[in-house]
């Protein structure tokens, strides 16, 4: 097995009583696209901000190629944001914006050339047409390409993308995702992409990790995980995606999850259809569902779900 680019070890991030990230192990391999999915408030943004070094972990570690990042900043990691308009300083030209990463890192080479290359690679061709433009003078899709060019100009090894297409027109989402996939395939970049949208994960990810209330509850290769989800939460998420019309729709009942009051036992148990339907009783795990936290999925796991029912069935069958 190749060495992981980034390893997150038993990461906890608390904001007062809110446990936004509550025990996460995760590895990102070089050259892969890993999608992080989960509903709003599950801690996805907090997790990737911690990987970038923007948020200080309450406990646990982020290792880059086996080394703990000493400073806050990992030069080989860059970010792409949901809203490109907000991510670009309105008073800077495209060339200044893209060059910023180089200037911060005191780049010794030819800056103008590096900027032009980054713009072309991000699909803004010919780059001269864009260099002196201001963000308000170009379209939303082009702005996101400028953000990507600004992130790629320093040739990072990992790109953290927080909902990179959520604020864009549906018609240009595919283009931007295609661009990301293309960068991965041509440069060996790894991408950790946060999304609400499982369809998007299906289109570009190699692996998927599902997050629920600050914890990763299922992980696996994209096709396997989306074709045969194991965790009841993943099943429920998938049942409402238009691409999976075959499935019976499950609308989750029970209280809205709150990171200030994470339930005991399995954190999903107040909303779990398996427990509610009596299935857990039949499997003899209902007690555990309510009282015992399933083990945290390890970073090395290729296919795993943090669920007592999944374990019971695996043992039985």
């Amino acid at each position, binding site marked *: 097995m190749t060495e992981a680019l980034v390893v997150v070890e038993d990461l906890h991030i608390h904001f007062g009583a809110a446990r936004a990230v509550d025990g996460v192990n995760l590895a990102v391999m070089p050259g892969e696209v890993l999608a992080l999915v989960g509903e709003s408030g599950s801690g996805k943004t907090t997790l990737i901000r911690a990987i970038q070094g923007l948020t200080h972990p309450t406990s646990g570690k982020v290792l880059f190629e086996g080394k703990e990042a000493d400073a806050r900043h990992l030069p080989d990691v860059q*970010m792409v*944001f949901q809203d490109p308009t*907000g991510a*670009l300083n309105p*008073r800077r030209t495209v060339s200044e914006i893209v060059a910023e*990463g180089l200037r*911060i*890192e005191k780049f010794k080479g030819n800056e103008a050339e590096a900027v032009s290359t980054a713009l072309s690679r991000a699909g803004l061709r010919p780059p001269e047409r864009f260099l002196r433009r201001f963000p308000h003078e170009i379209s939303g899709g082009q702005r996101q390409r400028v953000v990507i060019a600004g992130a790629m100009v*320093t040739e990072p090894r990992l790109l953290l993308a927080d909902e990179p297409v959520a604020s864009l027109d549906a018609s240009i989402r595919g283009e931007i995702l295609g661009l990301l996939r293309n960068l991965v395939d041509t440069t060996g970049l790894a991408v950790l992409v946060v999304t609400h949208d499982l369809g998007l994960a299906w289109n570009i990810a190699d692996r998927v990790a599902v997050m629920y209330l600050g914890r990763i509850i299922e992980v696996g290769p994209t096709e396997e995980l989306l074709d045969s989800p194991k965790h009841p939460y993943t099943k429920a998420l998938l049942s409402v995606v238009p691409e999976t019309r075959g499935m019976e729709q499950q609308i989750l009942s029970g209280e809205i999850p709150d990171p200030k009051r994470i339930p005991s036992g399995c954190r999903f148990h107040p909303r779990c259809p398996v427990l509610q339907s009596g299935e857990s009783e039949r499997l003899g795990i209902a007690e555990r569902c309510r009282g015992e936290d399933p083990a945290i999925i390890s970073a090395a796991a290729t296919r795993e779900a943090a669920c007592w029912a999944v374990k019971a069935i695996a043992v039985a069958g």
Partner: protein
Amino acid sequence: MNARFAIGKVAGALITLGFVLVFNFFLFRVVQTDPVATLFRGRNIPQERLDQLRAEFGLDKPLGGQFVDYLQQTAQLNLGLSYQSRQPVWNEIKSKIPATVALVGTSAVLSAVIGTALGVAAAWRRGTKTDYSITTSTMLFYSMPDFWLGMLLLVGGAIITGIFPVGGIIDAGSSRAGIGRLLDQAHHIALPALTLTLAYLGEYAIVARSSLLETMKEDYLVVARAKGLRDIKVRNRHALPNALLPVVTLSAINFGFVLSGAIAVETVFSWSGLGKATSDAIRGPDLPMLQGLFLLFSAAVILFNLIADLVYGRLDPRVRT
């Protein structure tokens, strides 16, 4: 900057100035029935002499003719004679400009610089004691009437302690020259300038603080931080230049009011500038003087608004197109 943008702004300013000229003419024709009678109110003057004076002032002509005269004279800075001093209005005004520019100009610059710095400091340490004390103290001064603040400082700084002079621009009968004269003036300007500076600090502090807080939510600051830019540089390179745009506009507008002087504070400190001249002219009423002053004040405001627009267009690429 876009030339069309600049030409449009200049044209707009000229049109506004034109309206002010027309308005200024008719306003004073409406309030004033017979200036000559006002001028010699209570005095026994023969009717022929009054008629002669009316002819001298051009008051016997029809309104249209008077308006043309007015435009011509205004263009030559001939603003008529002051009723009170019987001197040309423009000379009266000219002699008072330096005192007002010195006092109000100094305070405008000081309040802009210090107020903005305080607002920035408060925003940067929002929610802390620093923020709280800056916000409350500047708001306290801002909400006090300026003449009252002036009187408090006058009583404290001059009457009780005797550190500063009670009023005036320079010691009466002083024959000092050079540095000595300058120090004397500084001594006199200190209290009124402090009053005005304190009174206007709050506006800048509050605008700078809220604008910086707003800007600090922007994602491009996170982007810069994610790229490894240190916090202090993120603030200086990204947050401040954007956050201070409203402060630029605010200062330009306030500088437009520098010539209008500070009626109340100049009166409290017997500072013989345009503000005090205005209150004296109102008491007269000295209509030619008031007319001249209003024209000057409006022109200054229009000019500085134009400057604000042009500077803003220079600083913010989004408004140019």
